[in-house]
């Protein structure tokens, strides 16, 4: 079966020197390749600075890669013009880590959920409102909260709203960039269940970016581990969990254990 998303040798440089023409560059992505099968979940695990957020932005067509290709349903979106890219963008949606900053706090929940629908010029106000209410139902936000301002919602409710907004344009792929990291444990469980439900109801594909190995192990079919702009290990989740081979994978795994189980790591004072 053809993968829904296939990234081939993606490279992304940022200029970091003192002048525009300087040679110094920050290599965020150094030849990344991965693929995601339709209706499955790929967990991308890495620490900050590994380039995972840059990868998310490139896949969502919000950043232009320096070189390489991103095949979405057989089309290289990285090579498309702005106009053509705009047609593909609704199919790839992004959910960010901090819902407080990715939602306009002064808008009501209903307004946030219906905002993407404004793009569809052929819908009336009433149709948009109905669709938005349906979306809120999908993510289990009670209707009485529809007219509440976004900043009055709890952390979990805000993140549900962000997911509702992502669902508005009926995407095929949702990139979740540390979407659970800022939430309480019990709320993480609720949102994780919601995501799994939505995946089976709507046939969604997820790219689940996180630094939490335990949560990744729970939701993923495939796991890829990233370090300094490269994928160092990838494969089916069970294999990686049973026998992690790369040292980065192993150290991330070890980080989930209680600290006495770490052999002799400490700081000399």
């Amino acid at each position, binding site marked *: 079966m053809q993968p829904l998303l296939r990234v081939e040798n993606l490279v992304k440089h940022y200029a*970091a020197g*003192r*002048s*525009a023409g300087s040679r110094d560059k920050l290599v965020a992505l150094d030849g990344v390749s991965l693929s995601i099968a339709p209706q499955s979940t790929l967990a991308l695990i890495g620490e900050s600075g590994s380039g995972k957020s840059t990868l998310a932005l490139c896949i969502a067509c919000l950043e232009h890669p320096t070189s390489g290709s991103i095949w979405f349903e057989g089309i290289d979106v990285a090579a498309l013009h702005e106009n053509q890219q705009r047609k593909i963008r609704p199919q790839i949606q992004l959910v960010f880590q901090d819902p407080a900053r990715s939602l306009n706090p002064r808008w009501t929940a209903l307004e946030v959920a219906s905002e993407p629908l404004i793009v569809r010029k052929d819908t009336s106000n009433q149709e948009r409102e109905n669709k938005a209410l349906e979306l809120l139902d999908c993510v289990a936000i009670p209707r009485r909260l529809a007219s509440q301002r976004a900043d009055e919602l709890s952390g979990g409710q805000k993140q549900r709203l962000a997911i509702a907004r992502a669902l508005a344009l009926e995407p095929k792929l949702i990139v979740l960039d540390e979407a659970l990291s800022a939430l309480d444990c019990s709320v993480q469980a609720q949102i994780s269940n919601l995501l799994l439900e939505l995946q089976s109801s709507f046939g969604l594909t997820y790219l689940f970016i996180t630094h939490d190995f335990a949560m990744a192990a729970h939701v993923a079919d495939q796991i890829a581990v990233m370090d300094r702009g490269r994928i160092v290990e990838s494969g089916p989740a069970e294999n990686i969990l049973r026998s992690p081979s790369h040292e980065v994978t192993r150290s991330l795994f070890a980080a989930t254990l209680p600290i006495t189980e770490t052999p002799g790591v400490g700081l000399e004072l």
Partner: protein
Amino acid sequence: MRYLLRRSLHAVFLLLGVSLLTFLFSALAPGNYFDEMRLNPQISPETVAALRAQYQLDRPLPVRYAHWLNAVAHGQMGFSFAYNSPVAPLLWARARNTLLLTVTATLLAWLLALPLGVWSAAGFGRAPDRVVSWTTATLLVIPDLVLALGLLIIAVRTGWFPTGGLTSVGFDELSPLSKLRDLAWHMTLPVIALVLAALPTLVRHVRASVAEVLEAPFLRAALGHGLPHSKLLYVYALRAAANPLISLFGFSVGTLLSGSLLVEVVMSWPGLGPFLLEAILARDLYVVIGGVLLSMIFLVAGNLFSDVLLYWADPRIRTAASAK
């Protein structure tokens, strides 16, 4: 360093642009200095024509501009028709008088605004803050003209202060100390007018910046570490509140020459303002352009000054600038 060079280059281009525009507008405005002369039957048309030729008013615009630019490069700013003498020394004498007023007033206003603003912010919502808020609001509402006239009335009624001018009659015969006292006596009312006009805005800005900073987490953290109150307020809070205030200060410096026109006219202070006004009405072209250019230089210098100060005061700007 490169940051500063870039900013300075910017400034030079800005000045050139402004001078060109001013030249254009003045030259295109209907009428010129000699129109009045033409109306005068005693002066023959030939004389007028000869004068015009002498002052090069019959040459095309670009040529005149080029000549003027050349003159400026040599430190001259053209010739005044009305006073029949070079513009530069005339402008400079008047500018000096203006600066005397404005530098004093600006310094005084800032020296008062900082503690008042900090004091008001520290007592946010309580008595000191309310008093300051009300007073500044009242002062803001009163037009500058009314303030100046009000002070003038006080001067006339009480006779405590002179009603205008720079110096008294017989100034030159006084001893140096008496000269100073005389000058100060004449300066008092205009300075008070300027300070009262500028103070409310400054106080409100200082108060707003400091109040915002007082809510910041790092200030609460510093309080949690047991830092003494004075250090918290005057070192930690003020430094963090400095950015918008530095920009405001740069603006204060920038308007040193241009901000006191009204007060100077009302209080008959022989500064740049009234002089320029006269020149505009008389179509004294080069004086006008010279005056505008001088004011612009101050404005641009003020901006540059605040950019430099910001660069020095805020390490985040230094990092961002060097990353470009």
